[in-house]
C-alpha cells in the first residue's frame, strides 16, 4: 500500500502542492488535471525525484526516501518527457536501463524482446531510434517502465503521441497489468482513463479535489447535465444563459451540453453525466459545489 501522507511541496513562496493525502492499493488510478495543476509534481514525489517539504510518502509503512533503492526497485516510471539516446537501438537502450534497474544481463536479454513485442516494436528493436516517430518513442518508454515488472507503475502522460489504435492497445495492456500492482496514470485526456481507472484523482488549486471511482464522480453531476439543440443565431444567447460544458455542430444545428441545478425547460431532459462532463465542469467553471 502506498500512502501520500499530508504532503506539501513549496519552492520558496510558491506552493506546488498543498496538503495532499492519498492512499493507493493495487489498481489503476487516473490522475486527472489540466497542465500546471501539480500532477507532475505529485508524480515526481512518488518516484523520489523531488522531496516533500511537509509530510511523507510511505510504501507498506516505510518512508520511501528511507527505503531508497529498495523502493525504486519496485518502481516503473515513464516521465512526461521520455529521455533516450538517438543513436541507441531500443534493445540497446533497454539493456542499459536494465543495468540501472539492477536486472541481470541474462534476464534482460530474455525480457527485452518480449516487451518490445508487447508494444509492437519487435521489428525495429535493432534500429537506431533516431528516425522513430513520437509514438514509437513513447512505446519504448512504456516498455522500459515494465522492464523490472514493477509493483508500482507511474506513468506521466503515457499516451502522448500514440495513435488511437496504440492508445487502445495501451489501455488493454494496463488493464492486464493492474491485477497485482499500483498503476498511477497522469493525463489530461479523459478518454485515457475513463474506461480503465478504478479511481480518478482530480487536483485543483494545488490540492486534491476528488479521489473517487468514476461512477461516484459522475453522480456529483447526476440530474444536472442537459443536452439540447439550438439554432446558430441563438447560440450566443444560450452561452450567456447556461454554463455550457461542451458544444458541437450536428445536422446544421448547435448541440449544447450544459450544467444546470434546475431544469431550464420542461421539455429538456437531463442526460447521464460523463467523466468528461465532470472534468470540463471542474476545470472550466470552478469546483463542484
Amino acid at each position, binding site marked *: 500500500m502506498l500512502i501520500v501522507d499530508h504532503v506539501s511541496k513549496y519552492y520558496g513562496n510558491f506552493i506546488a502542492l498543498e496538503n495532499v493525502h492519498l492512499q493507493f492499493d493495487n489498481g489503476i488510478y487516473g490522475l486527472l488535471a489540466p497542465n500546471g495543476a501539480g500532477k507532475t509534481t505529485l508524480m*515526481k514525489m512518488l*518516484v*523520489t*525525484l*523531488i*522531496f516533500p517539504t511537509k509530510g511523507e510518502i510511505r510504501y507498506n509503512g516505510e518512508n520511501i526516501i528511507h527505503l*531508497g*533503492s529498495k523502493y*525504486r*526497485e519496485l*518502481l516503473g*516510471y515513464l*516521465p512526461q*518527457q*521520455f*529521455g*533516450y*539516446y*538517438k543513436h541507441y537501438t531500443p534493445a540497446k537502450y533497454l539493456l*542499459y*536501463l536494465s*543495468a*540501472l*534497474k*539492477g536486472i541481470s*544481463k541474462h534476464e534482460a536479454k530474455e525480457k527485452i524482446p518480449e516487451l518490445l513485442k508487447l508494444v509492437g516494436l519487435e521489428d525495429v528493436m535493432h534500429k537506431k531510434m533516431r528516425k522513430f516517430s513520437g509514438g514509437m518513442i513513447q512505446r519504448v518508454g512504456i516498455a*522500459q517502465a515494465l522492464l*523490472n515488472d514493477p509493483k508500482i507503475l507511474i506513468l506521466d502522460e503515457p499516451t502522448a503521441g500514440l495513435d488511437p489504435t496504440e492508445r487502445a492497445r495501451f489501455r488493454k495492456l494496463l488493464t492486464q497489468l493492474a491485477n497485482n500492482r499500483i498503476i498511477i496514470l497522469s493525463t489530461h485526456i479523459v478518454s485515457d482513463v475513463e474506461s480503465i481507472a478504478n479511481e480518478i484523482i482530480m487536483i485543483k488549486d494545488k490540492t486534491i479535489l476528488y479521489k473517487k471511482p468514476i461512477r461516484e464522480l459522475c453522480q456529483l453531476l447526476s440530474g444536472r447535465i442537459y443536452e439540447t439543440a439550438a439554432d446558430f443565431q441563438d447560440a450566443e444567447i444560450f452561452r450567456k444563459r447556461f454554463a455550457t460544458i461542451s458544444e458541437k455542430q450536428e445536422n446544421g444545428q448547435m448541440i449544447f451540453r450544459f450544467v444546470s441545478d434546475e431544469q431550464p425547460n420542461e421539455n429538456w431532459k437531463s442526460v447521464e453525466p460523463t467523466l468528461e462532463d465532470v472534468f470540463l465542469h471542474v476545470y472550466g467553471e470552478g469546483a463542484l459545489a
Partner: protein
Amino acid sequence: MRVFLYELRKLFNWKVLLLILFISFLFYKLFLSFYFENFPNGRPAKDEFMITKEMINKYGHEMDEKEFQHFKNWYKQKKDEANAYLKSQQDAEKLGITTYEQFRQLDLTNKQYADFHEKVVFVDQADVFWELQAFENIIEQYESKGRDIESYTDEDQQERVKQIMANNDVNSVFPYLVYENYNELTRFWTVLIIISVVMVTCRVHITDRLNNAISLQYTTKTGRNLFSLKLLAALAATALITTVQIVIFWFFYLGNGTQAFFPLSINSFYNFYYFWFDFTFEGYIITTVIAIYIVAIVAALFSVFFSRIAQNYITLIGSLVPIVVLLSYCTLKYLVGELFAILHPLMLTIGTFLVLIAISTIFIIYRMKQEKLVDLI
C-alpha cells in the same frame, strides 16, 4: 559494474575520439614534432649530446676533478686534431692561420676570414671544430658550477644550491639539452592530455541532461548513486586517456635516444636549473608522470562537476575553458614544465597541487551531497 562499464562506454563516443585524434595531430605538428624530429637541435648540440654520452662511458654518471683533468686532456687532443686539420688546409696557410686558437679568435668582420670560417664550419662541416665548441661549453660549465648561486635571491634557493654543491650529484654529466627536450615535450603533451580528458569527461552528465534521461536514470534502482558511478567512469576514462597518451608519447620519445641519461642526477653542473629534490632523470620522469596524472584527474573532477550543473553546452564550455586555460598555464609554467626546478619556490608548486586537488575534490564532494538532497525538477 555493468552500469560503470556502460557509462564508460558512453564517454568514448567515436565523434569525440575523432576530434581528439585531430587535435592531437594538430598539437603534434604545431608544438611537438620539432622536438622529436630535431633532437639534438643542430650543432654543437648534437656534439654535446654525443660527447656527454661518451663521458658516461668513460667516467660513469659523474665526473670528478681527476676525471675532469682527463676530460681537459681529451679536449687538448681534439685541439691537436684541429691544428692538424688547419695545417692541411692551403687556404689557412695563405691566411696565416696555423692553430685552433688563431681560428677561434678570427676577426669575422674580415671577409676573407669570414669566408674561411664559413667553409670550415658550415661547408666542410669539419666535426672537430663543432666538438671543440661542445668541449668548451662543458669545461666552462664545470668550472663555474655553483657560481650562479647569487642569481637566486631567495634564501631557500641559495641553501638548496649549497646543498647540491656539497654532494657529488652536481658532477653529474647530465646535459641541459636532454632536460630541455623532455621538459618542452612533456609540458605541451600534458596540455594535450588536459584537453583530451576534458573533452571526454565533460559529456558525462550533460548528454543525459540534454536527452532528458536524468529523471529516468534517477528513478531506477541505481538512482542517485549514478553520480558516483559516473564519476568513477570519468576517472577511469581519464586514467585510460592519460595512459594511452603517455604510451604514445613514450613511443615517440624513445626515438630521441636519451636512455643512457636515465640513471644520472639532473642536479648537474651542465643542466639549466637545479631542483628541490635529488632526482635522477628516471626519478624525475616518474615524478612528472605522477604530476601529469594529478593534473589530468583535477581536470576530470572539474569537468564532471560542471557537466552536472551546466544547463547546456554553451555554459559548460564557458565554465571549462577558463579551467583548462588555468591548468594549462600552471602546467606549462611549473606543474609539469620545470617541475620542482628551484627557480619556482617549492611551496608554489606543492601549494598549487594541493589547492587544485582540494578545490576540485570539494566541488565533487559538495555535489555528491547535493545529489542526495536536490530536487530534480
